């Protein structure tokens, strides 16, 4: 300790080190080993998902290829370990013998799509409402606040479950989209519809406190336009809390998609999502636990990684929450 101290003193004598908050945050984040590993895993998973077709081609696996000859009459792969081999790195899905890895990769695309778009949409609405309410205050804020409270009073999960079938039918009827596209639209729309009030509350409270800060007052005093204040002064200071919330709500929506598929009201086969795979795995849990372990493990791993990245980001961006 002492020697370290000395060397620190000896070096860079007299220089005042100044760093932008961003740099500080990045340094703090980088030092968080768990966070870095999780970020690495998250990025790898996202990349694999994004480039699923290429990855599958390289590995020589095909999500649509059926291997009915490798499945016994109970639906279980006949090869040992559920058919794990060079041709099928994670084995086969029971029932019709599709390649599990390929299905996980392709399935993740819809799951991620739902999670990302939902988060994006919810954040977008939350930002607008939060900024408007927090910045203009007064009556507008009152009304918006009431409305958010009103939405928060709805049992969201309940409502989504209850509305799924009829709403999907409605979407199909209007001709906006058919089949699974309609379901994806439904999920994204309603998850974000019930999700934004949370964001908007957070943004509003941030804006309310930022508004009172000197730099905003100064900008106002200098006669800066509202637009300028909102976009140049407020927004840059919102990114830290927003990024944290995003990283923490992504895994939530990822799991939500799985839950809805599990309940049979999400995306429908033949499309694959992690929820559908898990629902399938559930049926085979006692006879083919590999399938369940791999699928549930993948979901837990990704959710865990995303959560850890979120935690690490929060720790890095919020100096008060040192670890």
């Amino acid at each position, binding site marked *: 300790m002492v020697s370290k101290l000395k060397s620190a003193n000896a070096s860079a004598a007299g220089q005042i080190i100044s760093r932008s908050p961003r740099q500080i945050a990045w340094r703090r984040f980088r030092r968080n080993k768990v966070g870095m590993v999780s970020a690495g895993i998250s990025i790898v998973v996202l990349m694999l998902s994004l480039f699923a077709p290429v990855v599958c081609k390289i590995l020589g696996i095909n999500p*649509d290829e*059926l291997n*009915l000859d490798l*499945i*016994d*009459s*109970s*639906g*279980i792969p006949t090869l040992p370990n559920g058919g794990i081999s060079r041709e099928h790195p994670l084995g086969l899905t*029971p*029932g*019709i013998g*599709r390649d599990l890895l390929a299905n996980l990769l392709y399935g993740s695309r819809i799951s991620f799509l739902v999670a990302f778009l939902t988060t994006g949409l919810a954040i977008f609405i939350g930002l607008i409402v939060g900024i408007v309410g927090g910045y203009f205050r007064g009556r507008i804020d009152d009304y918006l606040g009431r409305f958010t409270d009103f939405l928060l009073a709805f049992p969201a999960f309940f409502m989504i479950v209850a509305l799924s*079938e009829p709403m999907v039918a409605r979407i199909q009827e209007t001709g906006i989209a058919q*089949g699974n596209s309609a379901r994806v639209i439904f999920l994204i729309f309603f998850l974000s519809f019930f999700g934004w009030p949370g964001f908007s509350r957070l943004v509003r409270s941030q804006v309310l406190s930022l508004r009172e800060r000197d730099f905003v007052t100064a900008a106002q005093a200098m006669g800066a336009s509202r637009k300028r204040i909102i976009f140049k002064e407020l927004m840059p200071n919102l990114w830290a809390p927003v990024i944290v919330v995003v990283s923490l709500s992504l895994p939530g929506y990822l799991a939500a998609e799985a839950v809805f598929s599990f309940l*049979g*009201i999400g995306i*429908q*086969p*033949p499309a694959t999502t992690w929820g*559908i795979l898990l*629902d*399938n795995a*559930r*049926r*085979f*849990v*006692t*006879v*083919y636990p590999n399938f369940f372990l791999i699928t549930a493990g993948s979901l837990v791993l990704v959710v865990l990684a995303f959560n850890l990245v979120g935690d690490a980001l929060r720790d890095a961006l919020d100096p008060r929450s040192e670890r």
Partner: protein
Amino acid sequence: MRKNAISTRVLAALSAGALVSTVITVGATSTANAATPKAGGTLYFLEHTPRLDHYDPSRIYTGRDLAFMNSFHTRTLVAYNPVPGEKGTTLVPDLATNTGVPSNEAKTWKFTLRPGSTFEDGKAITCEDVKYGTSRVFATDVINDGPAYLQSWLDIPKNADGTSTYTGPYKNTPAGVAAFNKAVTCKGSTITFNLNKSIADFNYLATYGVISPVQKKLDTGDKYDLNPQATGPYKIVENSATQLRLVRNTKWKKSSDPVRTPYPDEVIIQFGLDEEVIDQIMLEDTIPNAVNFGGPLPTNRDKFFKDAKFADRRMNNSDPYARYLAFNLVKMPCLEIRQAMYYARDAKALLDYAGGPDYAGSYATGVISPLLATDFEATKVVGPSDYKNTADVIDATTGFKPSGNVAKAQAYMDAAKTKCPADYKKATETGIVIDGRPSASDNDTIPINVAAYARVGIKISYNLIKSGYYPTVMDATKQSDLSTSGWGADWANASTVIPELFTTAGGFNLSQNSKDPAYKAFEDKVNLAMKTTDRKKQAALWKELDKEAMKNFWVLPTLFGKAQEIWGSAVQNVFFWVPQGNLAYGKLWINQ
């Protein structure tokens, strides 16, 4: 019989199936052992669904529910004899002293009630009670879902739209009431049914609760479904979201009931259990006095049927259903496309997926199931010429090949290209939409079908309907190009199959075939068959009609199914009750 309610697992038996046949017990083991039955104990039924569809005798129509309720709770005028084998298909008197006496060319049917039978509150069952029970099904807004034969057969004038002028006991017109009183009459303990045509097998309908006693003063309409008055040896004491509990009906007297032998003290259906949990309970024999009410999950079948340990606790039967996809002819008018769809299908993969010939059944040759022995004959139009043959070879007569006769299908497609280009375009470009119900195990079949049809360039997609499947697909405007379905006979006569599925008067015509050029001749022949009282001649006609419907590809026949049953080690005397298509639940006893 009824539509096939496809639960997430087996096709849950919907309907009473009266099936005279000897084919039934394919590899079935029965524990009809010599031990003397013991009374006492609690008999559990473990069930996945949250409840039975109905308990009200006028509204029950699914086979398993009928078998269950008629075994324990509800008595009907006549009953199937609860004994193993073919003898089980014979009618025996139940509430009546006879099995019905026809007269006037079977247009009039008389039943005489047995003295000494009572409701659970002790009131003696009278002819008026049966008449009242019969009247209820006419109140179609309250008493729905039951078989509708009475409405069409009783001699009561009809409105222009085909509905009866009598609207049931709750809300009606004097004219309607008068007409009903004429159609159903009571004289002492004899009830007489006057029909508008000759129905030689009307007494089979009397095995249904639609002709059973209901006390007028206790009829709560819709709510009667919750706790109907028992006439059998057990009454309902609890009907909750998790269980149906039956205990002994102390007013029931053995002397008045020649059919039932109530052994257990209590009978409980436990609802809403996870299917995997039920199977695990069975595998571990956690509850030895329980029956798996829905049969084992496909994933667990091998565990039961490949392990000698379960030899006395399992049964593998042909089920009474013929499964098929109904073509909606309004949307699929091109015969060649329909043929191509039949031959391109990979029936082998689907059968293998469903468990192979051991568990899932054999390739269908029509809509009349082999269990309807009298009326069944392989059509030799579709499917294998020998219906039991499951080898993957091209059948010389029909051209059917289980894994798909791609060449033949392609030929039909090529023909369609010139003959009906619009339909060809739809099949290959827009895609053909198939109605189905989302269920975990059926979902997997979608990729199999998509892949199979791609072989001849047909594109397909699915419209999965979660709630109200049959009402939706029976609405011609909402039905897609094909609808997944299944049907079993209501009793041992194809008169409850062919007319129901393929005529406009039928209750379950998903083919919308009235505009098909072949329809008129077909309908005429059906009417002829209905009039034919010579059972042999009638059977010959049904066989021809089955063949004709297949030739026209009004449906795409898929499977003659099988079903498995599993029970705990303490459950004794398990056997298949042929006419009900289920176990003879009332004969089970607990070895304590």
